[in-house]
């Protein structure tokens, strides 16, 4: 703004001088006009010397008078030429007086007139006389006319002189005034000049200020220019980068696997990429920016969805899966300006894979039945549904019996094939809505849609047991399996899936215990049982540590010599509260829990230690549970114990039952061979009660057989027992094995078995299992008896 005001001043100052100049010009012109006039006037006034003319008139009059006097004195003889000449000259002077300026002068001074007039008339009168001047007296007369005029003429001259000097003074004054005016004008001009110079300086200053401002402005402009250049350059660089980036984006856009389409607020296409065009089978030529979405051959359903989302300005991600077409994963995102951008990915394969994975996750691969995860979900789903009071949920937990044997004897592929058939038969027994799932291994579960009564459930179980029990043909072989079923029916209300499963499991356990190939309902007592078992399990775990376990020894008698041949070590548990817990209760528990391994080793050690205190001929027999053969190397353990105790391996016998032989035949064989290699005896216990015993005699290196007590007890009632015992004893002898008869309680029994050929006997007749002290006593008695060759009863 400052610049602007000074600029305005500038203009003002520019025009003022011009105005002043005009003023001066005008006044100069005026003054010069005045001067000119004055000069003219003055010049004119001085061009004619009135004084001179008037005084000349006197002079000429006097000279005429002189000439006339001379003529008069010559008395008619003189030359009139001179007088005539003088008169003519006077006349001319008079005429001069009468003309022009002089008359004006006289007009202006009326006082001059009368003498003038008188003079003129005198001259005129003289003129009349002039022709006769040669006559005497005439010249005197003329003189007489003229002489009176002398005085007035003189006065006239003087008057004229004063007038003229006044005029001169006036003129002088006028000149003076004009001079002053001129001086004034000059001074004013000088002042004006000074002013102009001042103005010039001011103007210069303003100019230089303006110049400075301009220069600053120019500098700043230049700076801006430089900045602009830099910015320009930066912009160009940025542009180049942008182009590069654009190219990158374009490449990225075109090369991405997803289709992309960006639309503005008016539903016009901003950009789309090639996959998009391909995906929707659009004409490339139509899919150009600016095209309205509606104009494209874009799936209407999708377009509508996009429009809807766009109106609501909601982002969304969904899968568009029209039947029979490719599935697209669509991601819709609104843009700040009102448009939206969407990406489309062909997820058909992924969907299929996901479906497959889900299927696999929920179904058993082999049988195609739903698997564990699904059945849990199903239970919970059904539990959550509102149901009528008679629409109960029941869970049938199925376990194939002896499946492992099939697997072992016929191979895994046969086992799988069997499972498939089992699954089919299960499905055949059940309704479509019933869930049949394979939990894994040989475990299945059936959950009927609704169970209205326990009887309904048991009927179903019966059907299943029968169906599964039917023979199978696998690999052209005839296979038989059976199934155990545990049934848990939902109690009155609000049972959890966990609980039902637990109950079914308990029921299954019972069914197995009941002999298999049967079904069993859960009963509340089972729970109790389970609780008890669990409690006992816990106690058992502590038993060893707390020293509640004891090893008792039952004598084994040499039947021939009727003396102690050895002892069988039996485990007893003395619980502070339970008292002496029956082995039948805790040993299976120990085997189930795996405690048997630790306990068994402990028993072995105790027995071996004890045996070291006995005479050499007294052997010690320790039971091995099949469980002990799992995982750990039994031979190593036995060897370690023998080393630790220092017992001669030949004195140790390890008793196993047939159930061991049912598992993992080759591994067991190898373990037994290792044991034999140690020098330890291997005894087959409970012989005759198992499954295909004779073949085992071929396979395994037994040193002794123990005939089960059932045969011995049954001897008195049944003949076949004796026959069997005979046969077994004979066989064993022929095979080089010893035979022990178990359960001898009477002398008769003793006699029979001895006659049958059994080497050794064991039973209450000889002694019950008792702590080590008793064993020691018995041995001592034996030794005494040796000294006396008779047996004390």
């Amino acid at each position, binding site marked *: 703004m400052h610049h602007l005001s000074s600029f305005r001043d500038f203009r003002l100052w520019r025009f003022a001088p011009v105005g002043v100049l005009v003023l001066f010009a005008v006044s100069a012109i005026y003054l010069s006009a005045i001067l000119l006039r004055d000069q003219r006037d003055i010049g004119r006034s001085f*061009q004619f010397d009135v004084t001179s003319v008037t005084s000349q008139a006197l002079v*000429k009059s006097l000279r005429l008078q002189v000439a006339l006097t001379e003529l008069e004195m010559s008395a008619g003889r003189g030359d009139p030429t001179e007088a005539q000449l003088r008169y003519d000259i006077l006349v001319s002077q008079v005429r001069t007086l009468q003309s022009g300026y002089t008359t004006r002068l006289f007009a202006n001074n009326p006082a001059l007139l009368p003498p003038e007039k008188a003079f003129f008339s005198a001259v005129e009168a003289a003129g009349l006389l002039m022709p006769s001047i040669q006559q005497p007296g005439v010249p005197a007369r003329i003189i007489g006319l003229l002489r009176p005029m002398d005085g007035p003429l003189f006065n006239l001259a003087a008057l004229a002189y004063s007038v003229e000097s006044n005029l001169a003074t006036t003129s002088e004054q006028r000149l003076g005034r004009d001079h002053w005016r001129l001086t004034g004008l000059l001074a004013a001009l000088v002042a004006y000049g000074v002013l102009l110079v001042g103005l010039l300086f001011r103007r210069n200053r303003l100019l230089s200020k303006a110049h400075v401002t301009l220069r600053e402005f120019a500098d700043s402009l230049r700076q801006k220019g430089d900045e602009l250049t830099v910015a320009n350059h930066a912009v160009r660089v940025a542009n180049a980068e942008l182009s590069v980036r654009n190219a990158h984006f374009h490449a990225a856009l075109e090369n991405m696997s997803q289709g992309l389409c960006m639309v503005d607020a008016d539903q016009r296409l901003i950009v789309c990429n090639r996959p998009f065009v391909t995906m929707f089978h659009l004409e490339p030529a139509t899919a150009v920016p600016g095209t309205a979405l509606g104009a494209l051959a874009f799936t209407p359903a999708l377009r509508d969805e996009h429009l809807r989302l766009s109106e609501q300005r909601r982002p969304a991600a969904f899968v568009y899966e029209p039947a029979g077409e490719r599935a697209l994963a669509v991601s819709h995102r609104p843009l700040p300006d009102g448009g939206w951008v969407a990406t489309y990915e062909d997820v058909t394969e992924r969907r299929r894979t996901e479906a497959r994975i889900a299927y696999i996750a929920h179904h058993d691969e082999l049988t195609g039945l739903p698997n564990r995860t699904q059945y849990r979900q199903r239970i919970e789903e059904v539990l959550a549904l509102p149901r009528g009071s008679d629409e109960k949920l029941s869970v049938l937990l199925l376990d194939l019996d002896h499946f492992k044997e099939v697997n072992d004897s016929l191979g895994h592929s046969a086992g799988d094939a069997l499972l498939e058939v089992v699954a089919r038969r299960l499905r055949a027994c059940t309704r479509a809505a019933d869930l049949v799932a394979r939990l894994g291994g040989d475990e299945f579960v059936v959950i009927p849609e609704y169970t209205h009564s326990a009887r309904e459930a048991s009927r179903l179980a019966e059907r299943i047991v029968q169906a599964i029990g039917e023979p199978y043909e696998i690999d052209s072989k005839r296979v038989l399996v059976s199934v155990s079923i545990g049934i848990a029916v939902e109690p009155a209300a609000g049972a959890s899936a966990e609980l039902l499963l637990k109950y079914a499991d308990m029921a299954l356990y019972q069914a197995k215990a009941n002999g298999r190939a049967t079904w069993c309902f859960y009963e509340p007592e089972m729970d109790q049982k389970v609780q008890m078992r669990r409690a006992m399990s816990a106690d058992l775990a502590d038993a060893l540590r707390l020293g509640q376990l004891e090893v008792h020894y039952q004598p084994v008698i040499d039947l021939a010599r009727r003396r102690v041949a050895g002892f069988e070590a039996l485990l007893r548990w003395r619980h502070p509260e339970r008292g002496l817990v029956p082995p039948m209760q805790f040993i299976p528990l120990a085997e189930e829990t795996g405690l048997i391994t630790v306990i068994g080793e402990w028993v072995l050690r105790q027995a071996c230690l004890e045996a070291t205190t006995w005479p050499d001929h007294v052997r010690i027999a320790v039971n091995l549970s099949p469980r002990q053969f799992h995982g750990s190397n039994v031979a190593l353990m036995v060897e370690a114990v023998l080393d630790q105790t220092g017992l001669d391996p030949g004195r140790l016998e390890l008793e196993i039952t047939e159930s061991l032989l049912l598992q993992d035949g080759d591994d067991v064989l190898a373990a037994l061979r290792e044991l034999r290699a140690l020098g330890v005896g291997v005894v087959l216990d409970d012989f005759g009660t198992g499954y295909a015993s004779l073949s085992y005699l071929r396979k395994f290196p037994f040193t002794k057989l123990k005939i089960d007590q059932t045969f011995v007890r049954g001897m008195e009632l049944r003949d076949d027992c004796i026959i069997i015992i005979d046969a077994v004893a004979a066989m064993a002898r022929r095979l080089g094995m010893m035979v022990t008869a178990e359960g001898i309680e009477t002398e008769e029994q003793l006699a029979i078995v001895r006659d049958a050929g059994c080497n050794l006997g064991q039973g209450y007749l000889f002694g019950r299992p008792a702590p080590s002290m008793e064993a020691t006593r018995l041995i001592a008695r034996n030794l005494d008896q040796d000294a006396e060759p008779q047996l004390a009863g």
Partner: protein
Amino acid sequence: MLLPVIGRRAMLGCAASLAFAQIAGALPALLRKPAGKPILTVSGKISQTNDGGVARFDAPLLESLGTASFITSTPWYDHPVQFEGVRLDRIMQAVDAKGETVRATALDDYASELPVSDFAKFGTLLALKVGGQYVSVKDKGPCFIIYPFDRFPELANSKYYSRSVWQVATIDVF
């Protein structure tokens, strides 16, 4: 007009000399005496005389030198009047004046000095007629030195007015 072939050059020569004589004007070998009563006497540094070292002129003699005239306004007449007479520079030529200044003396003994250079410069006239009429002594005659005031405004001042001698009797060249 047929000119004799031979005589052309001769004719041209004659014509030339005649013209020259004409142009040269009155440069007669002699200045003849005035017939009537002389009205002007020129004396001083002159070589062409007709009366014992001076040149006397009467009106016809003067006029034979060639007349000129102009109209001018003057302080002595109310209106511009025509002055007719002989240019002074012609008179100076006629008398072969050698001086630079002349003194013009009037019948009433008024005298004024004039530079000879004025005559050619301004064409100063020795007027014999005023307003077409010969002037008598009564009318500032018989001769009147007059400058062409109107034609040369710088003459309109007393310097030249005082040089404009009337009733001229003698002109002395020095």
